[in-house]
């Protein structure tokens, strides 16, 4: 094994605390939905949505790094997993969301409310 197997119990609980706090913040913001965050727009969507997305990525980072022990793997393994997935996902999401916006702009005028 490339990494030493020292006990990580303390770190596990710290990460659990972090993930819990992030989730509580998300739920709190989701319930409160402050107008200044929810009804304004920033780079295509509301700042609230950006906060949710960033916090989600932060959670994903902690789960992968601490729980899945990515931090203990060799750099090459880490990169081949994370970079390929992140690249492909960004590519797919970008194209599909742009296309979704196009579908809306084409079809919405045809819907009579």
């Amino acid at each position, binding site marked *: 094994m490339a990494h030493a197997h020292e006990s990580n119990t303390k770190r596990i609980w710290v990460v*659990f605390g972090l*993930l819990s706090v992030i989730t509580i913040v998300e739920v709190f913001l989701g319930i409160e939905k402050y107008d200044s965050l929810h009804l304004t727009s920033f780079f295509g969507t509301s700042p609230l949505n950006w906060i949710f997305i960033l916090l*989600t990525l932060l959670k994903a980072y902690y*789960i992968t790094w601490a729980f899945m022990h990515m931090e203990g793997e*060799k750099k090459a393994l880490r990169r081949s*997993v994370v970079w390929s997935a992140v690249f492909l996902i960004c590519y797919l999401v970008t194209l599909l969301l742009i296309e979704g916006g196009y579908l809306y702009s084409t079809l919405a005028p045809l819907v009579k*409310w």
Partner: protein
Amino acid sequence: MEANIAVSSEIEETWNGGGPQPLGASYGKMMMWFFIVSDALTFSGFLAAYGLTRFKFIDSWPIADEVFTHIPFIHGNYPMIYVAFMTFVLIFSSVTMVLAVDAGHKMQKNKVAWYMFATIIGGLIFLGSQAWEWNTFIKGSYGAVKTTDGKILQFVKDGHQIALSDFVVGDRLDYREEHTRKNGLWFESGKALPQYSVAQIMASYKADPSIQIRSEQINADLKQKIVLSREKGLSELGKGKMVVEGADLKVNEYGNTIFADFFFFITGFHGFHVFSGILINIIIFFNVVLGTYEKRGHYEMVEKVGLYWHFVDLVWVFVFTFFYLV
């Protein structure tokens, strides 16, 4: 032939973690990472398709806060609380899983077994919650009317959505009755008749001026569904085709058909992952108890299923965000 094989395959240690270790990861771990990357891309495909569809219907997509509002045994409107609870359960079961892996490194058999057990319980609670969530979603809580041009009309009073049973009174007016076995010589079961008829709802709507109709359309500035005026509501209701209660794959009371389809498909696919994860965890749990890994000299198997279990948690974090929050 020999030259093509890096290490003699006579050493049967594939299930032992595997011999050669490119990138410092054993064969089994490497394959688990392969699987996780491909599965991550599968889920991304689903969520991206959800995103595309939502963008396509951006002005009429159901608002999650108005759809998922229930907590078991408690009445009232509590958006998000229950899903947040489910998220906690899954994160916590991830913690017990990683504690099991940690105990495995120290060869503490009993601790590994107990932590695995806790992980399985966490998984079962999550799965049960999801079953409850599905049940609530399928049954529905308010009911709506679907028009001939495919729109869903919901009913509000004083700004809050109300159920059909809260205001619909009188007779069905369409003289229909559910066909049951005792009523005919040749019984053929048909679709169950909804509790109320469109005509009945129409009459009740006319009778009570405090009832208004909420359309699917979203006011982009307020990010709320537009409530129609009484007159406009009446003309929309005139196009009423059927009464919808709850959700199935063809029609649902929340709005777009495809919204419910995605809900069933994505949470269902994730739930199936949790289900398989629980099965695998149970197998590993028994192996731990039987001392299989104690004999083998290491607990890498626990680590590998741990990777899978954390991945299921990871996916849920994204489903939670994109289905319930954003």
